[in-house]
């Protein structure tokens, strides 16, 4: 990837992280850990990979994105705001009464949200339905889904994957955000998914494993997935829960709580410093 573009995507991801922290701090709740681990992927999808029109969110031929790990809504909202679907200022209304930014994504309220999700396992099925619709209507759009690693303990995820392979949905790419943690602790200790890549392969997916925080790796994996014909693709993202905020990194405790004022200040300080490094003398 061109270094300038890569830096731009890294800055976008940093702004998404700032949006996540603004949201969960304002809400005094929410899920920063799994949002931060997904921030780079969302920056990549919405600013490089996907063909969307923020000014026309329901454009029928758009690529679709389904956040099956719906609790990472703060990351999705921040990405959509950054992409221009609605003002970033609204991120501070996250989880407030009357806000269009619900605790988990609502397709009827938030422009750019393609599917209401939150109950784990269900988004992948809906994404498969969208991919089937694309094939049926002979449309060129692609469908992207993001699952959590903990989420992949849900049986419905595997029902959905089975059906995606059965219907040869090469317009469908599922990413698994493997940050290794879930509410009760390490995924490997709560209910191991290993060997995940082999399972996905066995379910009929063209499977790649990449560093989910490396834009070169993301570009290469999603580019390769486009070339795969006749079967769906899975991309295992090796990620760090809480990525980008030092004291949140790799801590299950940051799965589902908002920061206090002091933690908010620390987190914002770190992210603003990082953004400053990335954009130099440009606007922050």
């Amino acid at each position, binding site marked *: 990837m061109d270094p300038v573009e890569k830096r731009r995507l890294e800055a976008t991801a940093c702004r998404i992280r700032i949006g996540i922290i603004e949201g969960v701090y304002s809400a005094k709740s929410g899920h920063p850990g799994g949002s931060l681990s997904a921030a780079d992927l969302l920056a990549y999808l919405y600013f490089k990979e996907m063909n969307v029109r923020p000014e026309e969110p329901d454009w029928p031929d758009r690529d679709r994105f389904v956040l099956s790990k719906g609790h990472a809504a703060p990351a999705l909202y921040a990405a959509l705001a950054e992409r221009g679907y609605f003002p970033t200022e609204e991120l501070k209304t996250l989880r407030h009464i009357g806000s269009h930014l619900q605790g988990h994504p609502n397709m009827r309220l938030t422009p750019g949200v393609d599917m209401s999700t939150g109950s784990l396992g*269900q988004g992948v099925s*809906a994404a*498969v339905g969208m991919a089937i619709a694309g094939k049926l209507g002979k449309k060129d759009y692609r469908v992207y889904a993001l699952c959590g690693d903990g989420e992949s303990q849900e049986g419905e995820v595997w029902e*959905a994957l089975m059906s995606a392979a059965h219907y040869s949905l090469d317009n469908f790419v599922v990413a698994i955000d493997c940050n290794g943690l879930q509410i009760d602790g390490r995924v490997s200790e709560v209910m191991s998914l290993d060997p995940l890549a082999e399972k996905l392969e066995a379910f009929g997916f063209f499977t790649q494993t990449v560093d989910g925080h490396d834009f070169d790796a993301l570009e290469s994996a999603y580019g390769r997935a486009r070339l795969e014909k006749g079967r769906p693709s899975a991309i295992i993202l090796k990620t760090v829960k809480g990525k980008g905020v030092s004291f949140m990194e790799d801590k299950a405790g940051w799965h589902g709580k908002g920061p206090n004022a002091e933690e908010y200040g620390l987190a914002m300080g770190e992210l603003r410093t990082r953004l400053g490094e990335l954009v130099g003398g440009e606007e922050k």
Partner: protein
Amino acid sequence: MSEIKAATRDGFGRELAALGREYPDIVALNADLSETTRTGYFQKEFPERFFNCGIAEANMMGIAAGLASCGYVPFVSSFAMFAAGRAFEQVRNSIGYPHLNVKIGASHAGISVGEDGASHQCCEDIALMRTIPGMTILCPADEPEARAATRAAYHREGPVYLRVSRFATPVISDPSAKFEIGKGVLLRPGSDVAIIACGIMVPEALEAAKALSSEGISARVINMHTVKPLDRDIVAAAARECRAIVTAEEHSVIGGLGEAVCSFVSENCPVPVKRVGVNDEFGMSGPAADLLKHFGLSAENIASAARSVVKSK
């Protein structure tokens, strides 16, 4: 009463295929029960618009949601037990919450499934579906009405739960009658008691009214093919004019049509109500006709409830 008998699942399946000829946006999904739910008729004519999801009802509901979000009108079908029961939360969260245009054709509802027994006899589906905001619940009385209900479901925006049966029951509906969602049908006038029934209990209600008439009790019969939204006007008029109500459904007395009528009547126009339905117990194996008798779902039981409720006025 007509001697012609047919199952409401046949009406659903035949009309779905007919609709498929008219509307290219219809797709059908099934979970390995295409022949018995009668979506096989659609499959035969439109294989490219038919998706077997295998024995995975939860995923099927999600796939339907995704298809609906892209502008298709999916008719998903399974047994009521698995459509409303197993996949309840998918129906609630992936279809109901976003109010997606998915039609759920739930066959083999109630105990008249017969020999398969309690594991497959769903008497809870109306209760479950009633709790989902924005869900329309249709429970047609006979095969022709099942056809009309299927057509109406297609034209209704938003999620619809269409409850049909395996058991062949008498054809009683007026072929010239207009099927309108949310409007109960007055099948027989009467002034001493109103029998409000849905599904395959409607023919039984008519039988009961005939028997009551010979005893000098004038029973009104209302076919409440739409359980939700409930036709409040027809219930209020029944309460006001008959001063006593009997409900009849092939469903648990908990959470079904009977409770919907009781809730409305007790808050708005209190009169005595008796519910005929399955009394908080599981079903069992046996021929459908025997089971209906065993569980008290017959014209005799309705008539007996009517006599008792008339006395309590």
